[in-house]
C-alpha cells in the first residue's frame, strides 16, 4: 500500500505534542479510520521520535532530573497506587518509558553505592520485578506498558516487524524467482555493511534499477531515508538507487512487491 506524502503529512499534523499513549492512538484511529493501526502507530512512533530527539536534552539536565525525582517522591508519598510517573511524563511532554528510566537511574544512584550500569537499568526496565522498591517497580511497569513509542516492548515489536518483513520479502523474491544473496551470505563473504538483500540480477521497477533491497520497520520519511543511505551504503554502491523507501506503505515490502509489475 502506498501512502502519499500528503497523507503522511496530514497524519503527522495531528500528532503534535500528543502523549504516546494507548488513548492517543485510539483517537488517531478514530480520526483516520482508513489507515491500519500498524501504519498509524508507525507514523506516530516516527514523529514522536523526532519530537523526542529535539527535546531530549532539556529533560536530562541535572536540575530537571532532580525536580522530576522530587515530584515523583512527593507523588508516591501521597498515593503510591496513582499513576504518578506516567502523569508526570505526560505533563512535561516526555516519553513515559524514558521518564521511568530517568527516575530509576536517579533512584538507584541514591540507593546503591556504585552508579548503575546501563545493562542493569535495561534489565530492570524489561523486568520491573527486579527493582528493589515495589512502588517504583509498579510505576515503571505502568510507564513502559503504556508507552506506545518507547520501551522494551515497543522495541521488541519493531524488531519483530523488521524480521517479519524480511521473511515476507524473501518469500516474495523466491516467488518471483529473483536470485538474491541475503545478509548472512553477504556477511560470510566478508562485506561489513550489508543490505538485507542484494539481487544477483538487478531488476527495474518503475524505471528505477534496483540492485538491493533493505527492509526497515520504520517509515522512510525523507530525513531518515537519506541519513540511512548515507550511513550504510553510499560508501560502496555507486549509483544504485532504491528510492522506494520514500513514503511507501507501512514497510518497504512494496519495493519488492512491485517487482512483478515490471
Amino acid at each position, binding site marked *: 500500500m502506498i501512502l502519499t506524502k500528503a497523507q503522511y503529512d496530514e497524519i503527522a499534523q495531528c500528532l503534535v505534542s500528543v502523549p504516546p499513549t494507548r*488513548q492517543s492512538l485510539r483517537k488517531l484511529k478514530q480520526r483516520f479510520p482508513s489507515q491500519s493501526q500498524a501504519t498509524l502507530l508507525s507514523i506516530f512512533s516516527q514523529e514522536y521520535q523526532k519530537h523526542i530527539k529535539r527535546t531530549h536534552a532539556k529533560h536530562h539536565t541535572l536540575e530537571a532530573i532532580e525536580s522530576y525525582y522530587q515530584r515523583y517522591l512527593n507523588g508516591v508519598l501521597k498515593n503510591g497506587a496513582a499513576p504518578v510517573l*506516567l502523569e508526570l511524563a505526560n505533563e512535561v511532554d516526555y516519553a513515559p518509558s524514558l521518564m521511568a528510566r530517568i527516575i530509576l537511574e536517579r533512584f538507584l544512584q541514591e540507593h546503591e553505592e556504585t552508579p548503575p550500569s546501563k545493562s542493569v537499568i535495561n534489565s530492570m526496565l524489561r523486568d520491573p520485578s527486579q527493582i528493589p522498591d*515495589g512502588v517504583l517497580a509498579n510505576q515503571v511497569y505502568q510507564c513502559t506498558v503504556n508507552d506506545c513509542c518507547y520501551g522494551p516492548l515497543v522495541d521488541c515489536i519493531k524488531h519483530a516487524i523488521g524480521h*517479519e518483513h524480511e521473511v515476507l520479502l524473501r518469500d516474495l523474491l523466491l516467488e518471483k524467482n529473483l536470485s538474491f544473496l541475503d545478509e548472512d551470505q553477504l556477511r560470510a563473504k566478508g562485506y561489513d555493511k550489508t543490505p538485507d538483500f542484494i539481487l544477483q540480477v538487478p531488476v527495474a521497477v518503475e524505471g528505477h534499477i534496483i540492485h538491493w533491497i533493505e527492509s526497515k520497520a520504520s517509515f522512510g520519511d525523507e530525513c531518515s531515508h537519506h541519513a540511512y543511505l548515507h550511513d550504510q551504503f553510499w560508501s560502496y554502491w555507486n549509483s544504485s538507487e532504491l528510492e522506494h523507501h520514500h513514503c511507501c506503505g507501512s514497510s518497504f515490502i512494496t519495493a519488492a512487491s512491485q517487482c512483478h509489475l515490471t
Partner: protein
Amino acid sequence: MAAVLESLLREEVSVAAAVRWIARRTQSSEDSPGEAAVLRSLRPLRKEFVPFLLNFLREQSCRVLPQGPPTPAKAPGASATLPGRPGGPPRGGRGARSQLFPPPEPPSPAAEAPLARRGGRRRGPAPARERGSRGPGGPEEGVGGESLPWAGARRLRGSGSPSSPSLALCDPPNLSNLEEFPPVGSVPPGPAGTKPSRRINPTPVSEERSLSKPKTCFTSPPISCVPSSQPSALDTSPWGLGLPPGCRSLQEEREMLRKERSKQLQQSPTPSCPTPESGSPLPSRTGSLTDEAADPARVSSRQRLELVALVYSSCIAENLVPNLFLELFFVLQLLTARRMVAAKDSDLEPGPGVLESVGSPLFQSIHDCVFFAVRVLERQFPVLSYLDKGTLKLLAENERLLCFSPALQGRLRAAYEGSVAKVSLVMLPSAQAVSFQPETDNRANFSSDRAFHTFKKQRDVFYEVLREWEDHHEEPGWDFEKGLGSRIRAMMGQLSAACSHSHFVRLFQKQLLQMCQSPGGAGGTVLGEAPDVLSMLGADKLGRLRRLQERLVAPQSSGGPCPPPTFPGCQGFFRDFILSASSFQFNQHLMDSLSLKIRELNGLTLPPHEPNDDEGEADVDWQGERRQFAMVLLSLRLLAKFLGFVAFLPYRGPEPPPTRELQDSILALRSQVPPVLDVRTLLWQGLRARRAVLTVPWLVEFLSFADHIVPLLDYYRSIFSLLLHLHRSLVLAQEREGEMCFLNKLLLLAVLGWLFQIPTVPEDLFFSEEDQSDGFQVDAVSSEYGLDSVPVVDQQLLYTCCPYIGELRKLLASWVSGSSGRSGGFVRKITPTTTTGLGAQPPQTSQGLQAQLAQAFFHNQPPSLRRTVEFVAERIGSNCVKHIKATLVADLVRQAEALLQEQLVAQGQEGGEAAQLVESLCSQLCPHGAQALTQGREFCQKKSPGAVRALLPEETPAAVLSSAENIAVGLATEKACTWLSANITALIRREVKAAVSRILRAQGPEPAVRGERRGCSRACEHHAPLPSHLISEIKDVLSLAAGPRDPEEGVPPEHLEQLLGQLGQTLQCRQFLCPPAEQHLAKCSVELASLLVADKIPILGPPAQRRLERGQARRLLHMLLSLWKEDFQAPVPLRLLLSPRNVGLLADTRPREWDLLLFLLRELVEKGLMGRMEIEACLGSLRAAQWPEDFSEELATLFNLFLTEPPLPEPQLRACELVQPNRGTVLAQS
C-alpha cells in the same frame, strides 16, 4: 635562513611550528605567540628555507663525502645568507645546480658536446677533449676559491689558520707530474706526504666512478649508463649520451684524473694542512679500506643533530624537498660515509658551556653523520619498508644502523622478512619482429600495387636494419649513422605517399612497443638464447642462472639517483633511427600515431577492485589486472617518451637562450604553437578521475624531453604548477580511506622528483611556487573509485619505472663490499654450474622450446586467437581454483567437521584449545591438499578445450584449433597449479579453522535448546498472526490492566481466548518468529497469567460482571499452561509467577482468592513445567518480602497447603475450586 635554524636550535621555535611555517600553512593555534613572533619576523625568508637547509646539509657533509661527486640538489642559491659567505657571488643559470658543492665542475664534455656537434657534425670525442683541456687555470678554480665550504671559511676568519685553502688557487698542481700522483700504496716521498695525493686508479674514473657516487648528474651525464646498449657516438645526437667506448686514450684519462683531483682539492677544506689523517690514503672505493668505526657514544652534539634531523625529516615527510629519493640517497651516503677528511681543529670544537649554534660544523665526525642519518632513517621507515627486499636486507644488515638504533634495525628486519618484493632490475629486450598485420597491411589499404609493394620492401629493409643493429651495436667502433644512416634515409625517400608513411609509422610503433616494454621481466628468456641448454639446468638452477645473469647484465648504474632521460637498450635503436631518418613527414606521422595511442591507452579501465570474498581467489584474478596495468603504464611511458623526444626535437638545445630579448621573442613565437598532444587536459582529467597514477608517469616522461623554453610557456607552466601541487599533496604519512595507495604515491613522488631535477626544468620552479594550497582543488567526484586508490603499483613496477631507486641498494651494497673484511663475504658468490654431460643427455622436449613453439604459433595467427586463448586460460585457471575450493577443500572441511565431532564426543564437551584442534586437524588433512594439483589439472584439461572451441570462429582449421586448445590447457593448468601449489595448504587451514570455530561456537551455550528447534509443519501456509501484532495486542491488555484507564475501557472475555488461540497458532507456525519476539511473548504470557490469577484484567461488560468468571479464568490458564508446555520453544520465565511483584497483585484484591494460584502451581508441577523444589524455593523467598500482616499469614498458609498436599488427583482440585472466595474459608479448608 640561518636565523631560522638558529632559533630552532635555541628552542625558541618548535620543530612542528617551523615545518608548518615552511609548508606555508596558515598559522596554527598550536604555535605559541613567541614562536609566531619569531617566525613572522622571518617571513620574507620562508621560501628560501628548504633550499637553504638542503644546501646546508650538503655543505656540512662535504668533508665526509669528499671523494665522490656531491649528491645533487637542485636548489637555487641561498648562499648569500650564509654567515660564512658574505660575498658569495649569486650565481644564476645552470651554475646554481651544483653551487652547493663549490666549485661547479667545468661544463662536462658530455653536456657541452651536443652544441659542438650540432654545429659541426663532428664525430668522436674531440669536442670533449677540447673542452676539458681548458685546464686548471680555467674558471672553475677561481670560483672555487670564492665559494669555500662554510665551515672552512669560518675558520679562516676566526682563527686565521695558515692552512688556507686558497693554496689550491695560487699553486695549481702540476697535473702532468706523475710524482704527484704516486700509485696507491706507494710511500709518499718526504714532505709531499702532507698532501693527500694519490694516484687514482684510472678505471674508476669512468664507469666505475659513476656507479654509486654519482656526479652532479645533469651537468655531466653519466658515461655509458647501460653498458649493454652503448649508443653509438652519433654526431647528430643532441643527447650527448656520453663518450663512445673503446676510443678512450690515455690522454683522456689523464684529463679525467686531473679534474677529479682539482675537485678534491677544492672540496676538502684543508688540503694541505698536516693532519694525522692526511698521510694515509684517502678513502677510496677500491683497495683495502680502514673505515672509521662509528660509535654512538662519540656523537658530539646530539641535541643539535637531533633537531636538524627532525626538521629535515619533517621537510621530507611534507614533500617540501624536490626529490624524496635523492634525500634518501644523501642520507644513506652519510650512513655509509667512510671517514672524515679533515681532522678536527681544536679551535673548532665548541667550548663546553658555549651555546651550540649553527656556527660550528654540524658534522664533526663520522659518528655525527651516522647518528644524523639513522635519526632521519628512523622517521622515514614507512618509505624504507616499501623498498625492495634486497635493499631492506642490506639496510637490516648494516652494522652501523644496528649499533645506532637497534629498534630501527629490528623493524627493518621484520620488514625484510615480511617482504615479498623481490625486484629484478634486469630488463631483457625481446627482439621479436611484429608479425604481418593482415587487417591493416593488406593490399586493399594501399593506393596501388606499387605502394603495397614498396611498403613490403620497406618492411624488409626495416627489419634488416634492425637485425644489423642487434648484431653490431655492442661492437666497439660501430656507428649507427655510418652503418645504417644512408640505408635508412634511402628507405624514407621511397615513402612518398602519405598513406605509406602511416603504414610504416604503425609498424615502427608496434615494433617499438614490442621490443622495449619489458613487462617486469616476465617471460623473458634467460640469456636470450639456447633454451634447450637452459632447460637441462632445472628450475632451481635456472633461478640461480637468472640471478647470475642479472648481476652480469643489469646495468650497474642508471646514472646516480637522478639520471637524465636516456634511451636504454633497444630504445636507442629507435631514437637513432628517428635521428638518422631526419624525415619531417615521418616525424609528423609518428607524433600523430603516438598521440592517438597514448590517448587510447590512457583510457585504461580496470574492473573495480573490491574487497572480494577471499583474498586468495581474488588474488588470482587481481594479479592479471595488475599485470595489465603495468603493461599499459610501461607502454604509455615509452610512447610518451618518444612523443616528447620527437615533439621537442626541433627546439632542443643544450642551453637556454642567452639573452632576455631573445628568450622573449622565442616565447612569443612558441606560444603560438599548439601542443602536440593536449596533455594539460589529459592531466586534468586524470586528476579528476583519480587516475594520476596512470597519467602522471607518462606525462613526466613526455615532459622530461622538453626544451628550455617549454617550462616558460603558459600552457606548460600551468602543467608544472599542477604537478607541483600534486607533489605536495602526496604526503605519504596520510593514509585516509579512499586515498591513494602508498606505492602509488611513492611512484608518483619518484617520477615527479626525478622530473624536477631535469636540467631543462628551471631550478627555482620547485621552491618559488607560492600559495601552494590554492588552485589545486581537484574535485574527484566524477568516479567513485579511481585507479589511484587501487593497489596497482608493486615494487617491480616502481623499480622498473624508476631504476634510479635501485641506486640506494647499490650504495648500500658498495658499502658492504667495501667493508667485506668485517661483515664476512656479504656478497655471495654464485658458483656457475657447468653444463657437464650436456651432450650425453638427450635433448628433452623442453618447456622453453614449447614456449617458443607457442610463440611462433601465435605469431602466424590473427591476434584475436591469442587473446582468446589467453582469456580462456585466465578464466579457466581462476575457475579451477574456485572449483577446487568447492570440491576438494569443502570435502576436507567436512572431514574435519566429522573428525572434530568424534573428538568432541570422545573427550566430552571439553574439546581442548581451539588452536590445538585446528593444528591437529590440519596436520591430518593438509597432506590431502596435494590432490589439488591433479584435480586442478583434470579440471583445466576438461574445461578449456570447449571454451576455446566456443570462442573461436567456425572456420578455424582443426590443427590450429587443437593447438590453441592445448596451449589454453597448458596455460590454464600452469596458472591454476602455480596458485594452488603455493596456497592450497593455507586455504585448507583457513577453511578448517573457520569450520572449527563455527562448530565450537555451536557447541557453546544451550546445545539442548538448539537440538529441539522445530519449524512449522510442511502443510503450514504461514497464515498465523504475525508475532509483532500479537505482542502489540497483549501489550494493550497489559496496559489496560496496569491502568490508568477510562471507565468504559475493558477487554471482552472472548477476546482473551481468541488472543491465546492466536498465540498458539503463531507459536506453531514459526515462519515469522524470531527469538527476541518469542522471548517477549513468553514473558507477556506469564504476566497475563499473573493478572488472571489476581483477577486484574478489566472485563468489558455490564458493570455487575466486570470480572472474569472462575471457570473462564481457569480455562484461560489451562490454555496458557498448554502453550507453555507444548508450543513455546524459548524458555518461559515461569518463576515470575511467584515474583513478589506479581504475587503482590493479589494483595490489593479484596476478597483475596488463592485458589487460582494454587491451581496454577499444581498444574505447573503436574505438567513438569516447574519442579516442586523450585516452587518451594520461590515461595520461601516470597515470605522474606515485606507484606501486610494478614497477607503474610495467608501466604504462609498457601505455602503449607502446597507443601503438605501431595499432587492431588482431579476431584480434590475441584474441591479447591469450590472454596468460597473469602479468606476464612480458605483457611478453614486447610
